[in-house]
């Protein structure tokens, strides 16, 4: 009987060990990454809105942070098969139905985020332009690949 339980438990244990080794909980990871980008955007938006004065150093720091986070979005690692549901995910099934389209959207965002950081905007006008270019990716991707749940 004991042996039977051990036998039955082995694969479960193996999966548990394996996923711990892989680092993981892709749903939690991708949610944390999205939140982190929200923070970077949150420090930039008031400047774009004109509520806070333009500060080249602060802008560059936030744009660099945003770019760093953007480059961490690895569709295969963060949105693997099997994470379509669970953990309060709001990922749309379209991510898996049209994975090529999703990957293309992520790559566009990465390119725009890199360009915005590389531009090192020195005045408000050029910053607003760079910010608009990169932030339109948020809505564009969420339009198709995210669903609301609450």
């Amino acid at each position, binding site marked *: 009987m004991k042996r039977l339980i051990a036998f039955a438990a082995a694969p479960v244990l193996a999966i548990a060990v394996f996923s711990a080794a892989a680092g993981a909980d892709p749903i939690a990871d991708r949610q944390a990454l999205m939140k982190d980008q929200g923070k970077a955007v949150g420090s930039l938006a008031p400047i774009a809105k004109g509520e806070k004065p333009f500060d080249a150093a602060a802008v560059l720091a936030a744009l660099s942070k945003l770019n760093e986070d953007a480059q961490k979005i690895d569709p295969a690692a963060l949105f693997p098969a099997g994470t379509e549901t669970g953990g309060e995910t709001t990922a749309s099934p379209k991510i898996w139905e049209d994975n090529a389209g999703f990957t293309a959207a992520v790559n566009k965002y990465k390119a725009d985020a890199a360009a915005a950081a590389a531009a090192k905007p020195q005045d408000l006008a050029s910053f607003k332009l760079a910010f608009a270019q990169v932030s339109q990716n948020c809505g564009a991707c969420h*339009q198709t690949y995210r669903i609301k749940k609450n």
Partner: protein
Amino acid sequence: MIRKLLLLVIVAALGGAAGFWFLSAPSRVDPARLAAAAPGDAGRGERVFWAGGCASCHAAPGASGDARLVLAGGHELVTPFGTFVTPNISPSAKGIGSWSFEDLANAMLAGVSPDGRHYYPAFPYTSYARMQVQDIADLYAYLKTLPPSDNVAADHRLRFPYSVRRGLGLWKRLYLSSDPVLTVAGASDAIKRGQYLVEGPGHCGECHTPRNAIGGVDKSRWLAGAKAPEGKGVVPNITGGEGGIGSWSEKDIAYALESGFTPDFDSLGGSMTDVVLNMAHLEPADRAAIAAYLKAIPAHPRGFAAP
């Protein structure tokens, strides 16, 4: 005896059919009301166009930038009633190039086509019915300036009984009204303007308010959020109730409509992405007016089952 009974059944059926035909007849807008409108102003009409969100459904699927001004149709709305396909409303022979202003007004205010058929309320005339006739005259002038398209959109693919267009006449008797949804006591001019934009052209309630089994909007839970009309997910509560926007300031709401960013810098997604593209074209005062109205309306609990 049996013959008499049969006769009675036939008479009753005929009576029922006649009653259905009578009650379901399309009724148009009073021509005197339309005649009062001044000639349309395309410049003002552009504002109406963005407030009304025409491009969200009538631009070709996936169109961006100036291509959103080509109202070729073909966008599919997959709903529990079946699939609605939006028509071409560009100024061409395949679109609505031959329409008069009266045709457009009857479509938008009464949901009746030029040839006298009911439109399905996937076309939100239930909201547009609250619009001012002059705004439609201006919109008419603006639509004439847009690029033509020769696209022919597919037919709707609906389930029975929704496929019986005439039946909409009965539905309209229940759910089509030009009256305001609610009364805001002591409303400022901004709130009144916001009420007009939200309840009329903006047609926010079409997605943000729950519907009953036959698709009637539940006005007692106005803007409380609902299951997404198509596909998965939900449309959020935009009253001050649970899961709603009670903690947002008017500025937050106006900025979200302009930029797509929520106060915690998440970005609005789904169909709201297109709405933001439209709202970004409005005057800042109009976005502020929408915000003022949303803060003034009654709070409701979520209009959909808790997540």
